[in-house]
């Protein structure tokens, strides 16, 4: 079994690095850690980076998950190859560009590009936000899935994720006590569905709602509260149509032994208990 410890970073291609930086700093609130040739590294917490924009195509995306050590990396590569996934061993140069010691890359069954990384760097300096959004750190992703049932089996049997709850056939999966680190959303093709950063309080969620609305950043869902995780949230559009989320108050699953995932119906109140409805966000139809 591939033991994922945590989500580590997201890499997004973009044709317009300048706009991406402006959005990431003045709207989202991330801190520029480093500007390299054709790459922008952004921080949201004590890690040296959690979001990296690279100059290129928006469909060029990757999600990095941290695993224990290089032995585990080798075993993971072997497991994935046995299952028929093509595995790319990252070169030293590629690893340096991801600020990790070593990594392998592969595609999940839907075609999402996943990287398993070892020893991702942390920064000596604390995170200092570009705007007072109250961000405490990069927390989780929504991932497109062309077959949620099949992909749930991949993440829970090949990897160590556990389902915390389901909405329709969307599994919200954890790799540690945090309610979910991966949410699979039915879609017609691969891609990162949303990128979540945690914020300090509900006040921050509401402040960002007004702040972003004033700046005409499209609010695609919220402000709201997920009945599944309990978190108060706001989803909004960033560069190249990527959806970003702020949330706070995600439940923790303390009792691994006895937790049973709940089934919520595929309807608006399962996504938001306050009454907000998604607008323009590609929340999948269930058939």
């Amino acid at each position: 079994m591939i033991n994922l410890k945590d989500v580590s970073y997201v890499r997004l291609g973009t044709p317009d690095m300048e706009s991406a930086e402006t959005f990431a700093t003045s709207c989202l609130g991330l801190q520029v850690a480093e500007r390299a040739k054709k790459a922008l590294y952004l921080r949201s917490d004590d890690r040296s980076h959690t979001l990296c924009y690279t100059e290129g195509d928006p469909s060029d995306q990757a999600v990095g998950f941290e695993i224990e050590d290089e032995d585990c990396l080798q075993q993971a590569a072997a497991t994935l190859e046995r299952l028929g996934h093509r595995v790319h061993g990252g070169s030293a140069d590629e690893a340096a560009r991801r600020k990790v010691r070593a990594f392998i890359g592969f595609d999940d069954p839907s075609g999402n590009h996943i990287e398993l990384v070892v020893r991702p760097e942390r920064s000596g300096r604390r995170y200092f936000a570009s705007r007072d959004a109250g961000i405490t750190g990069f927390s989780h992703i929504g991932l497109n899935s062309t077959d949620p049932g099949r992909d749930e089996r991949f993440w829970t049997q090949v990897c160590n994720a556990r389902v915390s709850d389901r909405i329709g056939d969307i599994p919200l999966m954890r790799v540690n006590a945090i309610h979910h680190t991966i949410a699979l959303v039915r879609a017609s093709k691969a891609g990162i569905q949303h990128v979540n950063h945690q914020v300090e309080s509900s006040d921050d969620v509401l402040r960002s709602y007004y702040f972003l609305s004033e700046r005409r950043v499209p609010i695609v869902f919220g402000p709201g509260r997920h009945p599944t995780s309990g978190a108060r949230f706001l989803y909004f559009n960033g560069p190249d149509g990527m959806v970003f989320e702020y949330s706070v108050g995600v439940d923790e699953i303390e009792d691994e032994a006895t937790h049973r995932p709940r089934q919520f119906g595929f309807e608006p109140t399962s996504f938001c208990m306050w009454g907000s409805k998604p607008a323009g966000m590609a929340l999948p139809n269930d058939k």
Partner: protein
Amino acid sequence: MNPDGHPLVVSVCYIRIAASELHASARFAADVFGLQRVAEKNGEIAFRSDNRFRTLSISNGSGAGSSIGIEAWDEAALVGIEKRLTKGGFTVSRATTDDCRLRYVQAALLARDGSGNSIDLVARPTQSGRRYFPSRDAGITELHGVGIRSTDMARDLQFWKELGAEVSDWVGDITYLRIDGLHHRIALYPAKRHGLLYAAFEVETLDNIMQNGYFMQERQIKIVQGPGREPCSKQIFLHVEGPDGIIFSYVNGMKEIGSVRRPARQFPLAPQSLCDWGSEAKDVPELSAGVN
């Protein structure tokens, strides 16, 4: 404060308002806002929001049926209040038995503040034996406080001080007054006319504020301001407009004033002094903080 150590007044106890269409306003209060209708008597429909028998009454007409009820400690406190208000030059008279019956109280003084707002000082308001049970789950826990329009802030402040209220903070000339351990129960807003600005009802949690907000949006009920958060009191609010421009507010999370006394703080008259989150009021000058 009395020599006994108890305050002269203890709570905002009811709101009486006049409506141009009684039944439309009654429907708003119960079906939209979430109050429980309890009685119809003498042309007034009574509603409750908590363990008191009645916290809101609506009557037909011009405004004769409007007043804000403030509960006094007891009938002895009313005697003291009458003396102070008279000495301060305020209009005050003893309520008749009929006036009291209409107000569901045992004794009362009918007074006017410096702006001409009718303030009833009452003793022994009727409680209810049954618990509050509304027709929809708005999460209301009690009538919390009021916002009042003031055309003479200096006189109005003097009026409330005679009752023992103290200023917690100012935003421009907007004055937040406390009568118990919470930051404020009465807020005075400079205005061009007197009258009630809003009646605030506390709800259980932020969840209720947000649910009520989406509920209103879905039904195209006008939200005057919010959801928002008052910086000086930390109170989360949602101001909802009903018939005749009446504003009922859902509130939550007001902080206590605490045991260490501090001077009242002055905030500038600006939208960010009335809402920390960034909400702005629509079409209500008293809440617009000087912005047109």
